[in-house]
């Protein structure tokens, strides 16, 4: 009898405690993002292209390949021609480039695998971000150190809003946008906020800024 009572009481008060802890877990916010698993997985590509070598080692600008980033919503992937401007002369016979040469000869596009894919209900435009001094590395991370590119952060709504609510600490001078190693300075950021006419947080966090 005692054992059954003890067992029942443990079960009852244990589940009361369990429900309470579950509520704390959910409402305290400590578990936010715990289920996000979109970070850090390198996306395999058909051609073993290393950003670490081209952008980091050789120091090519991002814009050399992603040429539309200053003007268009989508930064763009380079056509085969862009690769071949160099690779007609540099390592023209490398087996790693076999697919690129095949594409060049047949005139067919290379099919790269997409690393970042925002949902369709989100409107994102690269140009204003570049123009207002948001560095590539703010979202894409140190691509110049990634042999195979991956998405370094979960692009949740919170991620976007954190910056839209308080952009100043993440701004940099326009000429530093493509500098992967630049460390933003909050003091300077506040000045840039004025200088670049960044809109106030009320406007940046309006629903239709991103959901149009």
């Amino acid at each position: 009898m005692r054992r059954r009572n003890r067992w029942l009481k443990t079960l009852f008060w244990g589940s009361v405690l369990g429900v309470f802890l579950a509520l704390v877990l959910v409402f305290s916010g400590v578990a936010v993002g715990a289920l996000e698993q979109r970070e850090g997985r390198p996306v395999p590509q058909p051609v073993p292209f290393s950003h670490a070598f081209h952008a980091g080692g050789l120091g090519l600008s991002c814009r050399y390949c992603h040429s539309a980033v200053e003007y268009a919503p989508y930064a763009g992937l380079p056509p085969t021609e862009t690769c071949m401007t160099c690779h007609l002369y540099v390592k023209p016979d490398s087996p790693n480039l076999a697919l690129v040469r095949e594409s060049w000869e047949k005139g067919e596009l290379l099919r790269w695998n997409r690393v970042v894919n925002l949902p369709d209900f989100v409107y994102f435009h690269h140009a204003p971000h570049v123009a207002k001094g948001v560095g590539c590395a703010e979202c894409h991370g140190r691509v110049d150190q990634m042999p195979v590119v991956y998405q370094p952060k979960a692009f949740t709504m919170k991620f976007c809003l954190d910056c839209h609510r308080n952009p100043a600490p993440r701004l940099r001078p326009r000429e530093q946008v493509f500098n992967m190693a630049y460390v933003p300075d909050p003091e300077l950021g506040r000045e840039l906020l004025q200088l670049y006419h960044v809109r106030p947080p009320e406007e940046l966090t309006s629903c239709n800024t991103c959901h149009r």
Partner: protein
Amino acid sequence: MGWPAFIPVTFEITILTITVGIFLYLLYLNGLPLAAHPAVLAPRYREALVDRPALFVYATDPRFDPEATRDLLRALGAEVEEVRRA
């Protein structure tokens, strides 16, 4: 200054937590839930639940004396039964 708009939710949550708290505290004070209790084994427990007075004297009481208790209760005109824990 929008604070009055936050009152209804604050109020409802206050009531909700207090109510659930009172209910759980009642159970805690009464030592519930129980899976079994020796009183239930008393022969006329069912009547005691409804309209019969009944007095349970526990053997775990440090001053428990079965004989004296039995005599006292008998003398007062009660039926005395011994209930053993199953």
